[in-house]
């Protein structure tokens, strides 16, 4: 397999982008990546998107986006793996370049979630859970993650305060991110006293409904210097699955797919969790950041719950996590999230993160998952000296 590099990135703001449609969002991000890399063509493209059908009634968005981007007739493929759609698209595009099938591949992710009301968005998102075993009984995603949080509290003694520190920390980071949907800080008290959503989760433990798109351009590492002085190498990729239904898992408080996808990525990259300088993980709910950092091995299991409170995962801490503000503060346009995480790591490794910069970051990790952890993808990126 050939080594693969990221040579350009583009991203919209995250938020309630009332003036932009699904295609507008994708085209803005994709043109940003194309301009950034300065390529004069692309060989193929992938679009990560969870549910354009339920959110805006549009399927078949591969060719639609190629057309509106002015890139037809290149091959264009939509990739879906719920909230992990973006990173599965990246993995697919990366494997296409690595295989030698194509050289310049655009990978984007997009979601337009605010054209529907809250109930419809909740319904659309819940299609990522097991319809027969979970959704049929009335389960929604806040409910599933509330059960994971309960199990974690029961097993490891995690507290409401631990969960709340994750949100406080991520909003501190997000307040420094101009693309964030909610660039505001919150106090621990504000988080703990926010509106109850699904006990024990409160409003400020939950990521928002967002519009947004993100895109990256890939090419073989040995061609990357043609386009940029600072390509970022994709050192490792790993993907794994777990049972869809929480009830079918060995331990509902542990995300096996996250651990397994990380092991595969670490193995391919030939690094360990201790080598990672900065990480973006899938904090769709505060509890998931705690579960993810322990499954990724970024912190000891006993330290995971208190990692945000102790400053371990803050900028300036031993392993800064979600410097973008995470899904919580930056926003969670589900199909775009995996690519947006990659862009945060890309910029960190290039030293372009301004106030959020993790000094000297060389190795970065992005972890993105679908549903309540039935799918997980980990990418490890490396700065090229």
């Amino acid at each position: 397999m050939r080594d693969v590099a990221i040579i350009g990135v583009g991203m919209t703001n995250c938020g309630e982008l009332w003036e932009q449609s699904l295609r507008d969002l994708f085209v803005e991000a994709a043109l940003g990546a194309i301009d950034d890399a300065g390529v004069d063509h692309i060989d193929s493209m992938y679009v990560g998107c969870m549910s354009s059908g339920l959110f805006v009634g549009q399927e078949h968005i591969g060719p639609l986006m190629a057309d509106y981007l002015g890139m037809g007739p290149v091959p264009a493929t939509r990739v879906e793996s719920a909230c992990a759609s973006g990173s599965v698209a990246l993995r697919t595009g990366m494997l296409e370049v690595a295989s030698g099938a194509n050289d310049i591949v655009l990978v984007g992710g997009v979601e337009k979630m605010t054209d529907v009301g809250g109930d419809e968005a909740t319904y659309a998102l819940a299609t990522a859970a097991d319809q027969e075993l979970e959704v049929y009984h009335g389960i929604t995603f806040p409910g599933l993650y509330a059960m994971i949080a309960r199990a974690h509290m029961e097993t490891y003694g995690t507290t409401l305060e631990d969960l709340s520190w994750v949100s406080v920390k991520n909003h501190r980071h997000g307040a420094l991110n101009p693309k964030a949907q909610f660039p505001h800080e919150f106090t621990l008290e504000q988080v703990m006293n926010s509106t109850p959503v699904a006990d024990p989760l409160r409003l400020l433990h939950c990521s928002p409904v967002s519009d947004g798109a993100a895109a990256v351009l890939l090419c073989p590492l040995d061609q990357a210097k043609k386009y940029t002085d600072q390509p970022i190498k994709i050192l490792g990729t790993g993907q794994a699955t777990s049972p869809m239904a929480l009830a079918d898992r060995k331990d509902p408080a542990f995300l096996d797919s996250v651990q397994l996808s990380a092991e595969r990525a670490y193995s391919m990259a030939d690094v360990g969790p201790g080598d990672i300088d900065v990480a973006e993980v899938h904090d769709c709910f505060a509890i998931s950041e705690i579960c993810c950092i322990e499954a990724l091995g970024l912190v000891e299991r006993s330290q995971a719950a208190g990692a945000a409170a102790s400053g371990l995962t803050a900028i300036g801490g031993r392993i800064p996590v979600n410097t973008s503000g995470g899904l919580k503060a930056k926003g969670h346009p589900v199909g775009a999230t995996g690519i947006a995480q990659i862009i945060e790591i890309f910029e960190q490794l290039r030293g372009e993160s301004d106030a959020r910069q993790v000094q000297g970051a060389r190795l970065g990790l992005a972890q993105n998952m679908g549903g309540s952890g039935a799918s997980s993808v980990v990418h490890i990126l490396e700065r090229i000296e």
Partner: protein
Amino acid sequence: MVVSPQWLIPKEQPMAVGIVGYGACIPKHRIKVEEIAKVWGADAPSYKKGLQLREKSVPAPDQDVITLSVEAARNAVMRAGDNFDPASIGAIYIGSESHPYAVKPSGTVVGEALGVGPDVHVADFEFACKAGSEGMFVAANLVKAGAIEYGLAIGADTSQGAPGDALEYSASAGAAAYIMGAKKLVATIDHTFSFTTDTPDFWRREYEHYPQHAGRFTGEPAYFKHTMGATKGILDQTGAKPGDFDFAVFHQPNGKFPMRVGKMLGFKREQIETGWLVPTLGNTYSGASPLGLTAVLDVAKPGNKIMMCSYGSGSGSDSFILTVKDRITEVQNKAVTTRSLLDDNPIYLEYGAYAKFRHKILKAD
């Protein structure tokens, strides 16, 4: 600088038009946010905090847009003065989204009740929550044009909120009436400005009982865009600044929006508070900003400057700049004040009685 020839300069100043009399009507009944939240298993503190609203008015079974309008208009007639003859009113415009009839005007009934007509132009207006200020805009400008001597403009609603919907916590009832003219003014209307686009954030289709809304889309691209547009527009045209006003009244669908838009525009809380009735009144839709203005006029002093800005979904805002005249002090106590209607002896309902009053439950035949 171009100097106009002498013959082009009008001999007289344009006629000053404005408010001759004003009046309010607010039902006696109230329901608290807690009482509604209890029924739906909702979190009352977060509704109260989110909406900055504690309770809302509820129309009695015998109150509708017509009866509320008549009562508000009678108060306006009282303030218009002892010698004011309702028969001199040349136009009646009632703005509402809860006219009792889909076909058959409210204004005709109100006119008969007041002794107006038959030589009168009558129209019912509808533009979601902006219909009341529309009537004010048209009546004042017809007076200005010299087409009528006096015009009666009313904003009134018995607003609908579907059971369990977020709107149920705020949709309330009330009316404000204004007699516009050019003589014996209590306040002049110095300038008007309208800002309108096609923005479908809230609607009720024909034959539907309750409106639908586009959730958070009703905020930034709808309410805020239009109230900001109308206020900035009138400030730009007149050269006025937020600090020039003693009072500002913004459409108040909840407690939060008018305070937030005021802050965004550079108004201070103290300028807005007098006309900010929503925390205990709820959202009276077409009556909302006109009622806020009645509360301001009740306490205003001669020379005070007032900014008023309505908002109607669909969407549009009308803004007005008013200057209070000396006559205000003679009329403030000639009819019941809005604060008194709001604060004195409310009757609190439980959800069951409220549901009956609002025809959410019906007695079997």
